[in-house]
């Protein structure tokens, strides 16, 4: 495995983890602000521990007991499914055909729901509602990251590097979130998602072929070539769909100052 594909692996995992953890942070902050920080942070920490255990429990046996070619075909197919779905969503959002993920609105809705919850936060001890919301937010958002870490890490025998990249991204988001003490609504999620989708598709296609016995020209150098191919196709499709016109533009959400217009103002 040459350094180029390792760099692409790290970038893909780091980007995916950043996007998912930004979304998780929104729920953790909402739970912390409305119900109390201690329980929210405990819930988030518990989810991170469970996700870490999942990576080790699932990833290590995969590397040691599943034949590498079978593993690569299965992992490649999973990465392709995930990558194509992410890219499709990113294309529709960038074309203005699907609303952007709005962290501000999610934060407001979750906060309102938690504040109106009849189960009052206990003065002392753990608030189970805040714990559960933070745990579920981090766990559910992190599950896709675990899949990506295990898939990419196991197929390249780079589980440690992949897990470290995901951990670094989660730590970065947590630190930035703690510093600004709010959800990170200005992170260009759709742009990151597009880049990660391109990388997942590239790895997926590469591993499906390799696992099946196809020899790509240039071996690992095929991965950056696929990155270029998917990037060009994605950009061209966005331009095409924008030019084709909004045949199914969703109704815009409530406009607020500073809120990006769906599909356009990606920071």
């Amino acid at each position: 495995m040459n350094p180029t594909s390792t760099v692409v692996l790290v970038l893909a995992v780091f980007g995916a983890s950043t996007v998912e953890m930004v979304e998780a942070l929104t729920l953790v902050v909402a739970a912390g602000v409305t119900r109390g920080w201690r329980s929210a942070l405990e819930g988030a920490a518990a989810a991170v521990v469970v996700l870490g255990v999942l990576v080790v429990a699932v990833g290590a046996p995969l590397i040691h007991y599943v034949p590498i070619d079978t593993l690569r075909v299965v992992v490649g197919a999973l990465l392709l499914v995930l990558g194509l779905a992410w890219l499709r969503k990113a294309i529709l959002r960038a074309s203005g055909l699907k609303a952007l993920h709005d962290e501000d609105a999610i934060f407001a809705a979750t906060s309102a729901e938690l504040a109106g919850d009849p189960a009052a936060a206990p003065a002392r001890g753990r608030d189970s509602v805040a714990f559960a919301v933070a745990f579920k937010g981090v766990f559910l958002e992190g599950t896709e990251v675990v899949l990506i870490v295990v898939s990419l890490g196991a197929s390249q025998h780079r589980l440690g590097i992949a897990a470290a990249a995901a951990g670094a991204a989660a730590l970065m988001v947590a630190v930035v979130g703690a510093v600004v003490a709010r959800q990170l609504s200005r992170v260009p999620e759709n742009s990151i998602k597009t880049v990660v989708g391109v990388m997942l598709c590239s790895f997926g296609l590469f591993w499906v072929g390799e696992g099946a016995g196809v020899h790509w020209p240039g071996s690992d150098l095929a991965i950056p070539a696929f990155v270029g191919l998917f990037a060009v196709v994605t950009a061209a499709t966005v331009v095409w769909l924008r030019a084709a016109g909004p045949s199914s533009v969703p109704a815009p959400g409530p406009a607020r100052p500073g809120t990006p217009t769906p599909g356009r103002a990606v920071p």
Partner: protein
Amino acid sequence: MRTVRRGARAFGAFWWDFLIGDTPELFVAVLAVVAVALLLRHHHLAAVIVLPVMTVVSLVASSLRGRRSGPRAPAEPAADPGPPSAGGTGASD
């Protein structure tokens, strides 16, 4: 027993949503890519051309299908945060 059943159902729902969700065409396309890769494993030149083309075509076709499928949910946030006590956070993307 009830907990096991509920867990199994949630596990199945996760994989269904992950693999198929609202884009079954992509799942079918990936299955086709895998099948063609296995069929063409001794015809490298054909595989090198056909596999990327199939993948790209399925992406573009699925995006077009998304454009034609009519207006979607007005805003994601409405469906995103789950109830605090049950259900989930709707953290699908």
